[in-house]
C-alpha cells in the first residue's frame, strides 16, 4: 500500500488481487455462517474492493494495514447481510490469517454487477469496459473516445464512485 501511494501501479495491482482472494474466503465464510447462498460472494468482494479503493485515504500510514482492511471488510459484509435481512453478529477475525491464501477458482460477478455497469452513463460505462474488460490503458481509451488521458481518469473515478453507490443503494 505504501508503494502504491508512491505511484507503484504494479504493487497496487498485486495488493488488490491479494486482498481479493482474502476477501473471497472471508465473504464465503460469512455467507455460509449466515445461511446465504455463495452466489453473492463475488459481489461482496467487488463492493469491498471498491470501498477500499475509494476510501484508501482513511488508512493512517503509521498504523498497520490489516486492521483497517478487516474493518472495511466487516463493514461491507455486515452491510450486505443486513440488506438481505440478516442482523446477527458477524465475526471475521477468525479468518484473518488467510490474507495470504491462494486464490480460489474465480467466477465473474453475478448478474448484479453487469446490471450495475449498464446503469452507468454511456461514456463512463465505455471507459470502465475499455479499461477493465478490454484491458486498455487510460490513454488508449482516451484516444479512441477523443478525450485526453486526464479527462478519462476523472471520468473513470466518477464511474467508480457511481458503481460503489449503486452497490450500496440498489439492492435493498
Amino acid at each position, binding site marked *: 500500500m505504501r508503494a502504491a501511494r508512491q505511484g507503484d501501479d504494479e504493487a497496487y495491482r498485486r495488493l488488490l488481487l491479494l486482498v481479493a482472494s482474502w476477501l473471497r474466503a472471508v465473504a464465503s465464510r460469512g455467507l455460509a455462517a449466515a445461511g446465504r447462498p455463495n452466489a453473492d460472494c463475488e459481489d461482496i468482494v467487488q463492493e469491498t474492493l471498491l470501498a477500499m479503493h475509494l476510501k484508501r*485515504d482513511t488508512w493512517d500510514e503509521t498504523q498497520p494495514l490489516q486492521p483497517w482492511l478487516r474493518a472495511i471488510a466487516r*463493514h461491507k459484509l455486515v452491510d450486505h447481510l443486513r440488506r438481505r435481512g440478516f442482523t446477527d453478529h458477524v465475526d471475521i477475525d477468525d479468518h484473518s490469517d488467510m490474507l495470504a491464501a491462494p486464490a480460489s477458482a474465480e467466477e465473474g*460477478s453475478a448478474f448484479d454487477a453487469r446490471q450495475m455497469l449498464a446503469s452507468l452513463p454511456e461514456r463512463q460505462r465505455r471507459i470502465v469496459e475499455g479499461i477493465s474488460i478490454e484491458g486498455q490503458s487510460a490513454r488508449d481509451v482516451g484516444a479512441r473516445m477523443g478525450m485526453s488521458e486526464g479527462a478519462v481518469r476523472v471520468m473513470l473515478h466518477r464511474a467508480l464512485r457511481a458503481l460503489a453507490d449503486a452497490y450500496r443503494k440498489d439492492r435493498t
Partner: protein
Amino acid sequence: MKTEQLVASLVADRAASARPLGRSVGRALLAGALVSLVVFALEFGPRVDLASAFATWRFDLKLVLVLAALTAASVACLAMARPVATMQWRWAVLPVLLIAAAALGTELVVLPAGTWEARLVGSNALVCLTAIPLFALAPLAALLLALRRAAPAFPALAGAACGALAAAAAAVIYAFHCFDDSPLFVLTWYPLAAIPVVLVGAAVGRRLLSW
C-alpha cells in the same frame, strides 16, 4: 465483470486522488471558519475592551479552554472518520477537563459565594446560545462534506464529532465577542450552545456519512 477486471480499473484510477484525511478535514474547518469570521465581523465584532481583556486571567483562561476543546475535537473527529474504531482520542479530552476543573476551582475560591449566581447567569447567555450555533453552521457543513470521502465506523458518531469540532471553532470565534469571562459562565453556556450543533451533526451524519 470479473474481479480481476475491476482491479484493472482501480489501478488505472490510482492517480486520481489520495489526499491525507487530516489535510482535507483541516481545509474544510478553515473554509467554514472563514465564513463564520465574516459573519462575526459584520454582525458581532470583537468586544471593545479586547486589548485590556488579554491582561485578565479569566479571558486568557477562556481562550486556553476553547483552544483545548478545539484540539480535542479535531483529534476526535479524525479518529471517528476512520473505519477502525479506536478510543485513543479520549486522551485529548483529558486536558480540557483538567483546565475546566482548575478554572472552576479557582473561580469558586476567588469569588464570594454570593456572587456566583450573577457570574453564572452573566449578561450574554442568550447571545451565546444563538451565536455559537450560528458560527458553527458553516464549519459543520464543510466538515460533513469533507467526511463524505472518509469511512467512519459509526456515521452518527462521526457526525457528532463534526458537530463538536464545528462548535469548538465557533466558541473560539465567539470568545472574542463575549464579555462574560467567568469560568462559571463559560462552562455553563458554551457546552449548552454546543449541544444542538452536536445533535444536528449526528442526525445529518447518520444519513450523509454512511458508506
